[in-house]
C-alpha cells in the first residue's frame, strides 16, 4: 500500500524537479500581507524586514547590549537640539550612485512630507542640512533623548534614483517617488528587490556590492511570502519547502512544528501585550472599575496559552506597564497575579453597579490568538458578575475607530513594541495626553502626572535620570490602571533546520529591535 503511494508521489514530484542553479540558496519565509516596500511608509513587521534589508540606516542598535553603533554613519556628535553625523566613505547605492549627505536630507524630508509609517518619530526634528558631501546636521525643536535611537527608523533613500522616477503629483516633488518606491528598491542594503507583489511575495537577491560585504553562507535569494495560512506554513516547513514562519503562527502550530524537529527563533523584549481600556467610556472612566478588571484577569493562564514548550514561550509574565529590561521596569520576580478578592473590593468601590455593565472586548481579526484572550477575559469577568461581549475587528477598521473615544471599544488588545527599542517610543505614544486616538492609545488617557513623567523621560540627559522618570511612570500607571498589562512579549518563529540566524538565537547577538534580527546578511544557509 505504501508502495503505490510513494510511486505516485515520486512520479508527481519528478515532474517538479527544481530548475534552480545548483548551489544557489533560497530562504523562504512569510509574513502577514501586505508588504510595504516604500521605506517611508514602513510600519509593521513585514515592512520592517524589507526596510532593514533593502535600506540601511545611519546607526544600528548594538548587538547584545545597550546603545548604538554607526552603520552608514562613521561617527556622530551632539546633544540637546543638534546632532551632526559623518557618513562612511565609499558607500554606494544599489544603483551605483554614491551615498551623500543630500540623500540623508532627502530621506528625512520625504519621510516628513509623506507623513506615513513611523514619520511621527521625527516630529521633533525641524530640519536636516548637508554640511558637506559626507556630513549631515539635524536640528531639533527641543531636546529629545532618544533621537539617536529613533534614527534606526530613518532608512536612507537614493535621492537621484527617486528624482529620476517621479510620477504625477502636486507640487515640485510630484509624488515623491511613491509609485516608484512602492515597487522598486533604492537603498544601499545587502539585498536588492527582484520582484515585489505586496499581496503575494517579494523576492530579494543578494547585493554583491554591499559596503560591509555579505557572507557566502547568507541566502542568495530570499522569498518573503505574504498571507500564508498557518496550516500551509506548518506543512510547507514539515515538507522542507519553507524556512521561517511568521511570529503570528498560533502556539499550537508552533508546538506541532517544534515536536517535528523545527527549531525556534526568538526575538525578545521591546514590547508587551496589552489589554487597553477606554478611560473615557463608562464604566471604565472610573479607575476602581479598571482596577477590578485588571485584578480579575487570569494572567497565569494567559501566559500558559502562549507557551510553546517548557523553555520557550511567546511571552513572560508582566511586572508592570514597562517590559522587564527597559528603563523603569520592575524586577522580573514582581509578577502581576489574578486576585479575585481584590477585584471584588475594587468593584465595590466603583461608582457603577456591576449589573449594569456590558464590557465590549475587541480583538484584531488578523491575530486569531486574541480571540482566545477575549474569551478568557470574558469568563474572568463573568466570574466577577460583569457581562461582556466579544467583537472582532479587522485591523484597518480598528485603527480608524480608535480615532474617536466614543467609537473605541471598552477593551482593545494590542501588541505594542518600542519601534526604536527606546521606552519613549513605547510609552509616549500610548499614554501622553497629546497623542490620544491612535492605534497605540485606545485608552485616551489624560493624566497630568503621566504626562509629566513622560516628558521627563524623553528630555532627561543621563540614563539614570531617565530610569528614575520611567520608574515613577510605571508606578503611576499601575495605580490608575489604564491598561491590563497582559504579558511581556517575545516573538517566536518556527524555522527549518536549513537556516542559522544568530541574531535570533543567541542573546549576545540580538539587536533588541523588532525585525532587525531578520537581516538576511547575518543568516546562514546550511545545506
Amino acid at each position, binding site marked *: 500500500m505504501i508502495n503505490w*503511494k510513494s510511486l*505516485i*508521489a515520486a512520479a*508527481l514530484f519528478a*515532474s*517538479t*524537479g*527544481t*530548475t*534552480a542553479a545548483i548551489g544557489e540558496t*533560497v530562504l*523562504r519565509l512569510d509574513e502577514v*500581507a*501586505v508588504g*510595504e516596500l*516604500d521605506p517611508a*511608509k514602513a*510600519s509593521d513587521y513585514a515592512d520592517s524586514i524589507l526596510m532593514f534589508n533593502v535600506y540601511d540606516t545611519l546607526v544600528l542598535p548594538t548587538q547584545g547590549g545597550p546603545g548604538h553603533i554607526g552603520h552608514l554613519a562613521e561617527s556622530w556628535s551632539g546633544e540637546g537640539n543638534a546632532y551632526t553625523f559623518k557618513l562612511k566613505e565609499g558607500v554606494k547605492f544599489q544603483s551605483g550612485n554614491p551615498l551623500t549627505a543630500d540623500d540623508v536630507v532627502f530621506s528625512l524630508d520625504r519621510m516628513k512630507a509623506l*507623513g*506615513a*509609517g*513611523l*514619520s*511621527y518619530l521625527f516630529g521633533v526634528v525641524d530640519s536636516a542640512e548637508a554640511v558637506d558631501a559626507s556630513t549631515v546636521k539635524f536640528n531639533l525643536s527641543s531636546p529629545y533623548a532618544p533621537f539617536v535611537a529613533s534614527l534606526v527608523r530613518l532608512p536612507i533613500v537614493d535621492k537621484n534614483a527617486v528624482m529620476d522616477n517621479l510620477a504625477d503629483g502636486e507640487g515640485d516633488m510630484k509624488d515623491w517617488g*511613491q509609485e516608484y518606491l*512602492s*515597487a522598486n528598491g533604492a537603498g544601499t542594503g545587502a539585498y536588492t528587490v527582484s520582484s515585489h*507583489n*505586496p*499581496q*503575494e*511575495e517579494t523576492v530579494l537577491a543578494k547585493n554583491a556590492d554591499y559596503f560591509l560585504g555579505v557572507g557566502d553562507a547568507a541566502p542568495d535569494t530570499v*522569498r518573503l511570502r505574504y*498571507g*500564508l*495560512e498557518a*496550516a*500551509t506554513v506548518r*506543512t*510547507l516547513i514539515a*515538507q522542507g519547502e519553507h524556512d521561517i514562519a511568521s511570529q503570528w503562527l498560533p502556539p499550537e502550530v508552533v508546538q506541532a512544528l517544534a515536536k517535528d524537529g523545527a527549531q525556534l527563533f526568538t526575538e525578545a523584549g521591546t514590547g508587551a501585550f496589552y489589554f487597553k481600556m477606554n478611560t473615557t467610556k463608562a464604566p471604565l472612566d472610573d479607575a476602581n472599575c479598571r482596577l477590578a478588571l485588571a485584578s480579575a484577569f487570569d494572567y497565569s493562564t494567559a501566559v500558559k496559552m502562549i507557551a510553546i514548550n517548557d523553555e520557550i514561550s511567546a511571552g513572560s509574565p508582566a511586572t508592570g506597564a514597562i517590559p522587564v529590561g527597559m528603563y523603569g521596569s520592575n524586577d522580573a520576580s514582581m509578577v502581576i497575579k489574578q486576585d479575585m478578592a481584590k477585584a471584588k473590593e475594587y468593584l465595590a468601590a466603583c461608582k457603577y453597579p456591576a449589573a449594569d455593565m456590558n464590557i465590549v472586548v475587541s480583538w484584531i*481579526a488578523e491575530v486569531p490568538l486574541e480571540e482566545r484572550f477575549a474569551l478568557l477575559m470574558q469568563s474572568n469577568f463573568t466570574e466577577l458578575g460583569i457581562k461582556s461581549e466579544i467583537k472582532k475587528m*479587522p*485591523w*484597518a*477598521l480598528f*485603527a*480608524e*475607530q*480608535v*480615532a474617536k473615544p466614543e467609537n473605541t471599544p471598552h477593551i482593545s488588545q494590542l501588541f505594542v513594541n518600542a519601534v526604536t527599542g527606546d521606552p519613549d517610543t513605547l510609552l509616549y505614544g500610548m499614554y501622553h495626553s497629546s497623542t490620544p486616538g*491612535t*492605534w*497605540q492609545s485606545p485608552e485616551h488617557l489624560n493624566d497630568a502626572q503621566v504626562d509629566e513623567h513622560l516628558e521627563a523621560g524623553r528630555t532627561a540627559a543621563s540614563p539614570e535620570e531617565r530610569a528614575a522618570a520611567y520608574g515613577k511612570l510605571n508606578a503611576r500607571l499601575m495605580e490608575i490602571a489604564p491598561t491590563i498589562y497582559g504579558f511581556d512579549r517575545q516573538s517566536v518563529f518556527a524555522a527549518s533546520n536549513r537556516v542559522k540566524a544568530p541574531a535570533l538565537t543567541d542573546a549576545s547577538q540580538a539587536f533588541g529591535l523588532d525585525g532587525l534580527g531578520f537581516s538576511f546578511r547575518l543568516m546562514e544557509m546550511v545545506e
Partner: protein
Amino acid sequence: MTPVLRLLARRLGISLIVLIGVSMLVFGIARVIPGDPARIALGPNASTEQIAKLRASLHLDESIFVQYGHFIKDLSRGDLGISLYTNRPVTTDIAQFLPATLELVLVAGVLMIAIGLPLGIWSARFRGRFADHIIRLVSLLGVSAPSFVWAVILMLLFAYYLPLFPIAGRITDTYTIESITGFLLIDTLIAGNFQAFLNAAWHIVLPAFALALSGIGQAARLTRANMIETWDKPYIEMAQAYGYAPARIANRFAFKPSMIPSLTIIGLDFAAMLGNAFLVEAVFAWPGLSRYGVAVILRKDLNAIIGTVLIISAAFLIVNLIIDLLIAFLNPRIRYSQRDVK
C-alpha cells in the same frame, strides 16, 4: 444568422444596462461603509491635514451623485483609482490577480463539464439501476457542501495524509515563467517549459476539484433530469424505432436537445464559481482576485472593492453572454426564430 446578431446586440445592450446598475449598486454599497476611508488608508498616525487632503482628492466631501459622476468619468478612461490597501492602481492589482482566478475557474469549469455531463448522461441512460443510484447520491453529496469544506477535505486527504499534491500556490517557485497571458498553464507552454507546465497543472488539481465538485454534481443532476425529460419525447422513440445504438441515441439524439435547458443553469453555476473561488483561494493560498477581494473588503478599500466587484460581475455577464450564444448555436429555434429571442 441575423437573428443571432440581433440576439447578440440585445444581450449586449441588456448586459450594459445591468453593468451600469451593478456599478451604481456597488458604488452605493461602498459609499455607505461606516468609517472614513481616508483615515483607514493613511493609517493610524496620519495627521488631520493629510486626511483632509486625501478626502478632497477622493471627492469624499461631495455629494454621492457627484462622486458617482467622477467615478464613471474615471472608469471610462479605464481608471479605477488607487487601491488604498496596496497603494497601486486598482487596475494593476486586478490585472495581476484576475488571471489566476480565471485560470482556476476555467479549469474547474472544464472539470464540471467533462465530468458532470457524462455522469448525467450515464445516470439517465441507466435510470433506476445501480449506477444511476450511485451517481445521483454522489452528485447530490457534491452539491451539499460549500466549496471550502471540499477544499479542506481534499487538502486533508490528498495533501496531508497522502501527500500527492501541493498544498499551496500555483507553481513551485523555482520556476521563473514570464507572464504573458497570466495563465500559467498557457505561459509555461509558450515558454516551452513542459516541466513547468506539469508543475502548474499539478498545483491546480486540488483547488480546481474543490471548486468544481458542487458544479459537477449540479451538472450531472441537471443533465440527468433533462435527459430523462427528453427521453420521453417521441423523437427519441422514433430514433429507437430506427434501431440506432442506445449509446448513440443518448450521446447524440437525446443529449443535444437536453443540453439546451441545462446550459443556462450550467452557465450560472460556472459563474457562481467566480464567487466560490473566494472560498477555495483562501484555503489553497491561491494568489487570485478573490483573496484580494476579501482583503480589500476587510480593509474597506473602496476603489478596490468597487473594481473587484465590477470586474467579477463583468466576467459573470460575459460568461452568460457566451452561454446565450452557445444556446443559440445549439438551438435552431432561437437561430431561426423571427420574433422574440429572449
